[in-house]
């Protein structure tokens, strides 16, 4: 439902509008016949990652320091990194890193003018990708990452994709990091953890792990829903293994951008 607050800086439609009830045939979401796109339970959707500006190689003067475009199945995310540039605190010993996350208005299935969790996600991303950056190398400066989700398909999967995209953009900007952060998500279906759930497959319990393989450190864990401790540990271990595979994809994309 669109909010009733009228934003005077935008062209507004009616104050209240709702989605119609779609009478489509319901998808069979049980796993009895396997997943709807034929993937294995531990397979991610195909990833396309590109470091550098979206269109061609030309850098204009108004360009970002680094940018990346990331696709995972139907998830599409674009990220621009600015920095290191002059920061807010002129006597800070470390750089200030901040992520600004936003959904494009048409990115999600249900359109809301202001997604209320954009701020929460921005904070989560800053805390998850921040530890990978050598902030001590850039005193008095600030590094900003702007992420826009063009199309989303599964909340946790989109978050994981955003983390991967920011890592790629930071590396493209030449910012010193301990390692690139790779993230992946899982959803609990029945008693099984299924990797990389789409919107249709998403269940009540889902897990996201962000991992730095070279230094063997986890930078972020996010869990929605409740599950037992053994299942939780199982998921973290499984996610970490999948993250290594995602890491390989990100590294390949970085190498390709240099050619």
């Amino acid at each position, binding site marked *: 439902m*669109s909010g009733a607050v009228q*934003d005077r*800086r*935008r*062209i*507004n*439609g*009616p104050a*209240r*509008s*709702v*989605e*119609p*009830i*779609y*009478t*489509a045939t319901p998808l069979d979401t049980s796993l009895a016949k396997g997943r709807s796109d034929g993937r294995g339970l531990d397979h991610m959707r195909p990833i396309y990652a590109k470091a550098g*500006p*979206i*269109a*061609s190689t*030309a850098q*204009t*003067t*108004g*360009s*970002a320091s680094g*940018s990346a475009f990331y696709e995972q199945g*139907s998830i599409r995310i*674009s*990220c*621009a990194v*600015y920095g290191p540039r002059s920061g807010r605190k002129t006597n800070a010993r470390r750089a200030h890193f901040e992520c*600004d996350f*936003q959904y*494009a*208005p*048409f*990115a*999600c*299935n249900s*359109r809301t003018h202001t997604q209320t969790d954009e701020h929460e996600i921005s904070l989560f991303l800053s805390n998850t990708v921040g530890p990978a950056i050598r902030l001590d190398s850039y005193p008095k400066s600030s590094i*900003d990452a*702007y992420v*826009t989700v*063009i*199309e*989303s*398909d599964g909340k946790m999967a989109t978050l994981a994709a955003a983390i991967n995209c920011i890592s790629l953009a930071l590396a493209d900007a030449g910012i010193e990091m301990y390692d690139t952060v790779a993230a992946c998500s899982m959803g609990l279906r029945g008693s099984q953890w299924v990797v990389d759930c789409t919107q249709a497959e998403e269940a009540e319990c889902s897990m996201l792990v962000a991992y730095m393989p070279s230094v063997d450190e986890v930078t972020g864990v996010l869990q929605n829903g409740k599950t037992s401790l053994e299942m939780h540990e199982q998921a973290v271990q499984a996610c970490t293994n999948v993250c290594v595979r995602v890491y390989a994809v990100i590294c390949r994309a970085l190498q390709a951008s240099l050619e």
Partner: protein
Amino acid sequence: MASTEQLTFAIETFKRIHPVEFQRRFLSQDTRHDGRAFLQFRATHVVKGTIGTAQGSATVRIGNTTVVCGIKAEVSEPDVNTPDQGYLATNVDLSPICSANYRPGAPGDEAQVDSEHIFRLFGEVVDLKQLCIENDQAVWSLSADIVCLKSDGNVLDAAIIALMAAVEDLKLPQASLDPATGVVSADKAIETQLTLRKRLFPATFSLVDDAYLVADADDAEERLATATLLVVLDDQGRLANVWKRGAGTIDRPTIARCIAEAKNHQNAVSSALE
């Protein structure tokens, strides 16, 4: 320490520290820094239906400028004064993603002005009566959002073409209102597309350095433009809109020339939209 020898720069450095002089070197020799002729447009590429979550969408590229338009359709009650008309709200989103010129957060001046202009332009294109589901009770409310992913000049042309393509791509499921519950249900199996009143073909010209008229300025040229002229033609070749921005002056023969060139460019845009 005064020195009489001439300073020599690498091209990139020269472009950075003295952009005006850099552009003049090319413009005074009757060419542009990317090799185009003065009135030559960049190639336009349009792909429709790129966003799965939107009912209508399109991605447009003019050179390096990349713009995505997505249209979401929701249902609402019509306005009391126009009980058989739906809504179309168009918004342009310019964020740090596309260029360092823009700040994050609420739409800035340029985005607001562009949104308003495109909104008025497309009032002539879409017949809002086609968005009626049930007179006086339920209508479609379309939210068209144009997100710029990369700005290399001339975002406005790309935005207009993207919205044109997205509206042509729009598929509305057949909706019906249940009079007892007041709930609107929609069947995705049966889809209708809108019949547009007219189609729009934009062309933007800039007066760089107050002397040189160029078509489809890219980012480097746009920064030095003293005046910009947008010419929008409809499918009959008639003038749908002329909009001059900027503090510089453009004389009337130049405006006539721009309109003539826009007519030449119309075919290129039209074939891209197919």
